[in-house]
């Protein structure tokens, strides 16, 4: 969930409202936001926005715009958008795309702006927008990266091409020397951070102006010269490169609207592609590409459980900044230039609901009579639990993830059927347990000072690799139990197994087990009698002292584990 920092003064400027922090906290839910932190000294608020499909909210300007729209009835319009079949004049601001980037990073969108000297609030917000858009919406620059430049030094047309990473050199922002593109990946902090995006490519994306002056090495770093933007700048060039043109175009629209709201004139830039794009070969940005969405008012009313007329629905949408038409029972939504989150009429329905306010909906109990029921496994598990408790056992609940050391090495097993995690966060949580036994022994190991005897059990799940299965493994409901006492031994656990299986109504036979976790000759396999042939259900016995030693357990233990899915059959 993206979090942004806003200055209270900035938010007031863009929203034209002066809410207190408490009032703001009440207002933000309308845009799926909340106040995360407040610094009363600096007046900086940290806001969190939950809707990952609304990147337009991730800036002071965007959040302020949404609040202004919702709470004042303002419906913003922006006149600098080209549309399909109607491009605005670019006055020579053009970017030519070289065919070489098609296989590398195929799309670029851009615009320019001019206006008042850039102040700190606007510049900070612009930098934050860049970060949030490229990190959250642009997948850490993988699909969207953004660059901002001083445009008065740029000689159009700007050239976007893919170049040889070893022979192309320039001085990146933040370093005092000239480096090759490949060296930048190793030596510049941004190169180290974002390098993996391009490292495997034969050629790297590169942006220059018509004289060959370097703008940037997207998506990594700007040049030290054209790419150094600071307060006081009045003329800027903004570009974004990436892999998905609609996302890129939307991101450009969002930044353009933010800067327009900050008082800048947005100047169109035309990008000429040598290959076809979803919007044609020549596209002038900012570009409005969203399509109208039609939704039946009856559908919306039914989904929301209300009965609005067309005008009421339109008014609700307007509060969300959404223009619409209504006729013949059909609501036609014209998505705002900075939004692209209307995939289905349900998205329109939600905006109607939020525009009206959830508080206006009277809760109503679902009236369908249905029969409640627990799963058979749960019911069987409860029977088993009750019997174990009746035998004096304390129920435990353990984590299912653990280390190789605990789940395999300390158990003296080979561990060939234990599910391993490819990307563990730490080696402490790298395996999924294939047995409850290690958890029980861990408990015994850390509980040497708890009054003896110890009788503990868990009814829970275990997972074992099984190559014949579609998902390569099987999850099983399992009962594991352990007793620790100075005089604990096979006779005691043997009696408990007999009692348990008697009350579960299972006839069974035992066979001597060679399970390495137990003392040889003091462990038994449990085989349930079946008409066809006996079915294996588990093992029990005296835990081998070598295993006890591995767990620092100083008292004799018996341990058993039974497959409840087998017993329940």
């Amino acid at each position: 969930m993206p979090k942004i920092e806003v200055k209270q003064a900035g938010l007031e400027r863009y929203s034209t409202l002066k809410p207190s922090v408490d009032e703001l906290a009440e207002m933000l839910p309308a845009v799926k936001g909340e106040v995360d932190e407040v610094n009363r000294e600096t007046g900086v608020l940290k806001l969190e926005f939950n809707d990952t499909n609304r990147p337009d909210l991730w800036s002071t300007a965007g959040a302020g715009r949404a609040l202004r729209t919702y709470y004042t009835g303002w419906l913003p319009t922006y006149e600098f958008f080209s549309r399909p079949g109607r491009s605005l004049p670019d006055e020579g601001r053009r970017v030519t795309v070289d065919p070489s980037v098609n296989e590398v990073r195929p799309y670029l969108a851009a615009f320019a702006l001019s206006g008042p000297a850039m102040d700190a609030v606007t510049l900070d917000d612009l930098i934050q927008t860049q970060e949030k858009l490229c990190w959250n919406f642009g997948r850490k620059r993988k699909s969207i990266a953004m660059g901002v430049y001083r445009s008065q030094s740029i000689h159009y047309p700007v050239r976007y091409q893919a170049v040889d990473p070893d022979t192309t050199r320039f001085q990146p922002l933040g370093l005092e020397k000239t480096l090759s593109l490949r060296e930048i990946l190793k030596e510049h902090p941004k190169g180290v951070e974002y390098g993996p995006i391009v490292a495997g490519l034969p050629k790297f994306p590169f942006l220059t102006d018509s004289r060959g002056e370097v703008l940037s090495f997207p998506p990594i770093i700007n040049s030290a010269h054209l790419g150094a933007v600071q307060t006081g700048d009045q003329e800027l060039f903004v570009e974004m490169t990436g892999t998905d043109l609609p996302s890129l175009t939307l991101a450009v629209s969002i930044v353009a609207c933010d800067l327009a709201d900050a008082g800048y004139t947005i100047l169109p830039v035309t990008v000429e592609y040598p290959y076809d794009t979803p919007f044609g070969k020549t596209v002038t940005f900012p570009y409005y590409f969203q399509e109208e969405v039609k939704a039946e008012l009856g559908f919306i009313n039914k989904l929301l459980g209300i009965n609005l007329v067309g005008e009421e629905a339109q008014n609700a949408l307007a509060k969300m900044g959404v223009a619409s038409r209504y006729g013949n029972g059909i609501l036609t939504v014209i998505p705002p230039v900075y939004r692209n989150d209307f995939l289905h009429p349900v998205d329109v329905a939600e905006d109607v609901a939020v525009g009206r306010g959830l508080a206006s909906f009277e809760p109503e109990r679902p009236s369908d009579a249905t029969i409640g029921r627990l799963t058979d496994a749960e019911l069987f598990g409860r029977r088993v639990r009750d019997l174990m408790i009746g035998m004096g056992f304390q129920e435990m609940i353990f984590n299912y993830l653990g280390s190789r050391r605990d789940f395999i090495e300390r158990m003296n097993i080979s561990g060939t059927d234990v599910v391993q995690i490819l990307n563990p966060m730490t080696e402490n949580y790298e395996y999924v347990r294939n047995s409850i036994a290690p958890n029980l022994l861990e408990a015994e190991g850390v509980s040497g000072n708890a009054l003896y005897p110890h009788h503990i059990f868990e009814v829970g799940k275990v997972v074992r690799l099984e190559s014949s299965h579609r998902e390569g493994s099987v999850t099983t409901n399992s009962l594991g139990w352990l007793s620790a006492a100075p005089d604990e031994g096979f006779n005691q656990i043997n009696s408990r197994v007999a009692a348990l299986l008697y009350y579960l109504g299972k006839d069974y036979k035992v066979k001597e087990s060679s399970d390495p976790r137990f003392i040889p000759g003091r462990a038994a396999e449990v085989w349930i009698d079946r008409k066809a042939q006996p079915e294996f259900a588990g093992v029990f016995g005296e835990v081998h002292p070598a295993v006890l030693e591995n767990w620092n357990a100083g008292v004799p233990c018996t341990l058993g584990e039974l497959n409840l899915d087998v017993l329940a059959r």
Partner: protein
Amino acid sequence: MDQDTLVKSLHPLEVKVLLTFGTGVPLTAGVLGEKLGYKVGQANQAFSWLCGKGLAHETGRTSKTVYEITELGKEQLAGGTPEENLLKALDKGPVAMAEAAQLLGLEQKDMGSAYGQLAKEGLVAMDDNKRIVKKAAESPRLKTLRTLLQKASEADLDESVLSEDEKAILSANAKKRGAAASVFKVSERETVVYELTPEAGSAVSAIRAQGVTGDELGALTPALLASGAWKTGVFRPYNVAAPPSRLVIGRRNPYQEYILGVKDKLVSLGFEEFDGPLVETEFWNGDALFMPQFHSARDIHDVYYVKNPTHAKEIEQPWLDRIAAAHTNGGDTGSRGWGYNFDRDFTRRLILRSQGTVLSAKQLPKAKIPGKYFGVVRCFRYDQVDATHGADFYQTEGIVLGSDVNLRTLLGLLKMFAIEVAGATEVKYVPGYFPFTEPSVEVHIKHPVLGWFEMGGSGIFRPEVTKSLGVDVPVLAWGLGIDRMALMSLGLSDIRELFTANIENVRLRRRS
């Protein structure tokens, strides 16, 4: 302590002492043994209790030397000392030293010292053939030793009442430590002298007033029942306020108890339980929930990937084709889709289930309409483990299917949960966001103890989810964060405590 409670707290061993002896009389364990027939242990127990209640106090200690018979002493008392046995053996004629040792089962050196001692006293001598011969019939020393062994086997010997001869013999045959090789063990023994205090006087009056004699019946035994002796006896009242000893019992884990309570509540509200495997595919964990494959929440660092095998053999049809179409262009769901090329390899990728909603999605193809379903299921999330994040944890999720369910019934459902499951006093709804629901609602509740907090998330499943999985009616989907309520109920603040391996912590834990 009032007199009544005091009398009740007295054990018969104490009562008899109080009734038998007056204040100011010196009392020892020996005295109690003599007058009341107490064993030493019983006497000491009575003194200890009486002193604890202020009814007796210690007035002094005397020390004496005592001899007690050892195991070896007992053996020799029964089987004869080596010297006695040697003399006896010589009655049949002279015997060579080695032969005698073998005959008597003695080691060479013990044989030697037995011979040496007897020879010194002129009882035996060596003849010309190096054979031992008997010279005298009687040894007063051996006779005295035998008498002492006999006495010591009955009661420890008090040095102060022994003759000089006896003392000499004892000290030759006793050791303080390592006495196993000697027939006597000598030790210093302290005798503690007590007296009853003036308070004992009033206790005696109270005892008499209540008619307590010290002969009351203690534990009711099968023998008492069989003999019927209880009919003529009086039961000694126990101090029922005495602190009980600890009992460790078998019981449910209180967290499980909480979960069972939630499950039972949901069943009572008409919900049917679902469950499923811990290893899932990207298909069910994300794709089926209309989370685009390029979504940032689906990067490698948000779910745990299974190392081997990496992919499921296949994904169930027709759901795979239908979900793929929904992602690409909406399919027949009325959506325009996400507009990208659905990756059919990625969708088979095996992972550990990261959200309970997976099971809600899997329930859709087999769900009844109308229908209500729920699950309390273990999930795995790629998070740093801390007080609020576990390596694995429980999620409570469910769905409601019905041709007439809508946003208002969703709010009604949430209100029902807030009151019935969470015990809330007030409910507030705010717009939420989940990739698989639209509209989405977060529910905040005011709990009488916890105050306002987020109880859960919910929404109406997107048609891209439901239609693709064969359901044509609206489906309410909800999830409840019951961990927080469970922690509160157990008086805990760290989620890791819910899964602790510490037996004592679990044993002591209880619900408030």
